[in-house]
């Protein structure tokens, strides 16, 4: 987020004249619309907004947003974004990446942009597959995923994007999915957070990993399978008939039944977005036994990298004159004067 002058725009203002080249029915369309709907609500200025991406289906995103856009190379978008932000901290940066781009080839850069806390919104579109290279298993693919590169089924353990982000030192972790009507709220909260805000967006790849998130994202039965978190509110789902409580013996979360709305006596926890330990437990909740935790899981800002860099530069420059001639002649010098043979 940036302190910025709010600009009035409409959804249309954020559309480019470029033909969108995702597969028909791809979840990316819904995410694009959600972002285009959110930007006017934020009062964002297209001239001061930069979308930066790596490589993959999700990384085509900048071409479709009428702002500044930089489609870079595979996995490295966080490094480019860091350079852009340091060069001009006034720019509002949205980073677009995917599970392959952000967690495989670019895992290193993602870790460092999060731990440095460079102020930007990082949207990781997680479709648990390599789409643009035609369907190989990705680092988030579930064990047993059959793909051209894993014909008998994958056997490596999947990475958990939100857990990775938290472990890397992220101070904001949000979760949503492509067609969710709550996605703009998560994006807005991420934008309001000053620092690196990580948003995992489950995205349906209808060609290579169709409906893989249906077990919680499908409209039917969604209430029972989605836990939408709100700061200061009890963690309730299934029409408030169930909640999340802390089992004090095992120090782990458990699902409890709530009768007659009395969540307090059922021991349901009130969501505190600054509680890192609970955030970790929410991220790690095994789906099935538990619902999928969505919304803002963690939000606890701390000073940003670019502010520290600016501060350091200011301190280091204080009282110093940027005189190049003096700099060149610094240190121990000697003067050769002209002689008869070698007049000045």
């Amino acid at each position, binding site marked *: 987020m940036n302190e910025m002058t709010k600009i009035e725009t409409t959804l249309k203002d954020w559309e480019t004249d470029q033909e969108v080249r995702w597969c028909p029915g791809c979840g990316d369309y819904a995410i694009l619309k959600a972002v285009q709907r959110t930007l006017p609500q934020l009062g964002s200025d297209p001239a001061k907004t930069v979308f930066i991406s790596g490589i993959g289906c999700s990384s085509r995103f900048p071409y479709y947003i009428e702002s500044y*856009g930089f489609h870079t190379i595979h996995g490295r978008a966080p*490094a*480019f974004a860091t350079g852009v*932000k340091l*060069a*001009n901290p006034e720019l509002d940066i949205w980073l677009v990446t995917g599970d392959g781009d952000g967690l495989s080839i670019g895992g290193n850069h993602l870790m460092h942009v999060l731990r440095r806390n460079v102020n930007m919104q990082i949207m990781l579109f997680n479709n648990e597959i390599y789409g643009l290279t035609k369907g190989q298993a990705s680092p988030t693919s579930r064990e047993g995923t059959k793909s051209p590169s894993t014909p008998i089924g994958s056997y490596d353990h999947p990475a958990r994007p939100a857990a990775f982000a938290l472990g890397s030192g992220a101070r904001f972790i949000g979760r949503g999915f492509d067609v969710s009507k709550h996605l703009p709220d998560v994006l807005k909260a991420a934008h309001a957070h000053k620092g690196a805000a990580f948003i995992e967006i489950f995205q349906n790849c209808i060609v290579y990993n169709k409906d893989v998130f249906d077990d919680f994202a499908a409209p039917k039965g969604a209430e029972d399978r989605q836990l939408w978190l709100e700061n200061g509110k009890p963690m309730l789902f299934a029409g408030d008939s169930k909640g999340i409580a802390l089992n004090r013996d095992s120090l782990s979360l458990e699902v409890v039944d709530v009768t007659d709305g009395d969540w307090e006596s059922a021991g349901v926890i009130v969501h505190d977005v600054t509680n890192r330990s609970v955030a970790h437990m929410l991220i790690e909740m095994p789906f099935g036994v538990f619902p999928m935790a969505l919304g803002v899981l963690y939000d606890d800002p701390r000073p940003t990298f670019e502010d520290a860099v600016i501060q350091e530069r200011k301190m280091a420059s204080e009282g110093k004159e940027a005189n190049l001639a003096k700099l060149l002649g*610094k240190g121990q010098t*000697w003067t050769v004067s002209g002689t008869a*043979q070698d007049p000045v």
Partner: protein
Amino acid sequence: MATASTTPQDGIPASPEAIVVRFAGDSGDGMQLTGGQFTLSTALAGNDLATFPDFPAEIRAPQGTLFGVSAFQINFGSREINTAGDAPDVLVAMNPAALKVNLAALKPGGLIIADTGAFTKRNLDKAHYDANPLEDGSLAKFDVLAFDISEKTIEAVKPYGLGNKDALRSKNMWTLGLALWMFDRPREPIHDWLKAKFRSKPDIADANIAALDAGHAYGETAELAGPLKQVHVDPVPSEPGLYRTVTGAEAVSLGLVAGAQLAELPMFFGGYPITPASAILHHLARLKEFGVTTFQAEDEIAAICAAIGASYAGQLGITSSSGPGIALKTEAMGLAIMTELPLVIVNSQRGGPSTGLPTKTEQSDLYQAVYGRNGDAPMPVIAARSPSDAFEVAIEACRIATQYMTPVMLLTDGYIANAAEPWKVPDPDDFEPFPAKFLEVPNDGENFLPYKRDEKGARPWVKPGTPGMMHRIGGIEKHELTGNIDYSPDNHQRMTNARKNKVEGIVVPDQEVCLGETSGKLAVVGWGSTYGPIHRAVDNCRRKGMDVSQIHVRHIWPMPKNMGELLRGYDYVLVPEMNTGQFKTVLRDQFLVDAQPLTKTSGQPFQIAELEEEIGKFFDGIAGNEGGQVPANDQQLPSTDGGAK
């Protein structure tokens, strides 16, 4: 007093034109520091000089071992000095390993100064000596001055209450004191430096000063007794002005700061620690007041990507590394070429491939610089020939990058990065500014075309944040005007041509002949840090009457327009380089001249003598068939006789 000495320094005249001294010891003995301070005092005495620090890749290799030897060589004189010298006249050996490793280089009749205190049984064993060479007569063809420097140092610093181990750390200062006496150098600058260095530990400063003074006093006493004498080297006549010493890493850093100022841009430097390039990051990190942001990235790739990001946002992005790191940055260079953003990439070359020889010098990244990217990815390449030349070359790199919207690779090497030489401090006002221009309004009527080129073939630079100029760029082939994704065959052909033509059209000065004639029998063509030895060797050969000229190339890509014609004016072209013949290949490719290779990949710079010998072979043929061929040791391309005509 000397415990062992043969004849006094017969080998060294009392007033030589130039003299080469090598300080060698264990990597913990502080030889680089000793050499650095001796260099400073030599510069202050008005001699011309060149240095060659040669140290192991290990930070603290096991004490006393052969591979842990660290050396610093300096050549200084009353005439122009071009190299650190072929063979030392004086070798200071702080332990047996240092003697063993460096003895072969010493001139016959040269002087060895050795610390007998370190020639213990244990250290002799570590250096694989069966007998003590100071005592077994094996050094008969040298002058040997051996005495217990260790003991004398302990004695000198005794009043400061240091333990033996700490006291022995001042051994290098004792030795420096002796060297200062020997070459009649003032001690005050070193006193000042020690006081400043140990400002918070005055005891340590005093102990080191005491050791330095004791070494100096020992020289006087020893002279009275006979075995040692003072050597005077007169100041070199040089152009009037303000001088300082400068290493290549310093000069590159200063040149980049100057280049950014001349372009009127803040500088963003993305780096990742790597030998021998880190020194540039360290220098720039201390120059924040010049609008410099330094960013130590998580890896080489992030370092260049962040620099490109900064260039995209309107700063001058710079990154620096050495061969293996440059390899990692390669994909990002392609993006900078594709998106046509300014960027300077400094490659301080070292021995390769892979990790290779991290602390040794080589010029073997030329192919990597000129050809080493996927796709047709043309990029300007320029090379510095000496530490002081690196300043101007860095400015030139910034100029090309910002004026032509292109990444530029600047080649230096481990030798240039670490070596020091006197430098006439330039006046920044002598350089023509080249302010960068940002496009802020549409460039095609009411439309903005991000890839519409100017007369130089460069596309406009638009800073994000500029109202009404929003656009998208990226690594995918783009339409020749709008920059929108465009894979169509004709467009890719036109864009490939445009990128090629832009780089080939970069205006570079005509190639000059550094020494000799613009045509003749033999041209010795070099690039980079071989300048010094080639210059001296060609000069020596010309004095012997040989028709040989020196051409030294700064602009490797694109090359000066007159290059082909110039080379064809010589009967023979010899290309000495510290690789297996890379520039030779480029010259053959570009100009169809029979450039002949003279290659060396030992991690050590060329010696003047070896170059003279090879040049001589062109002139000692049978009458009527003068110009014997240099034995070609390059198997890549057959050479055709007479192709150089």
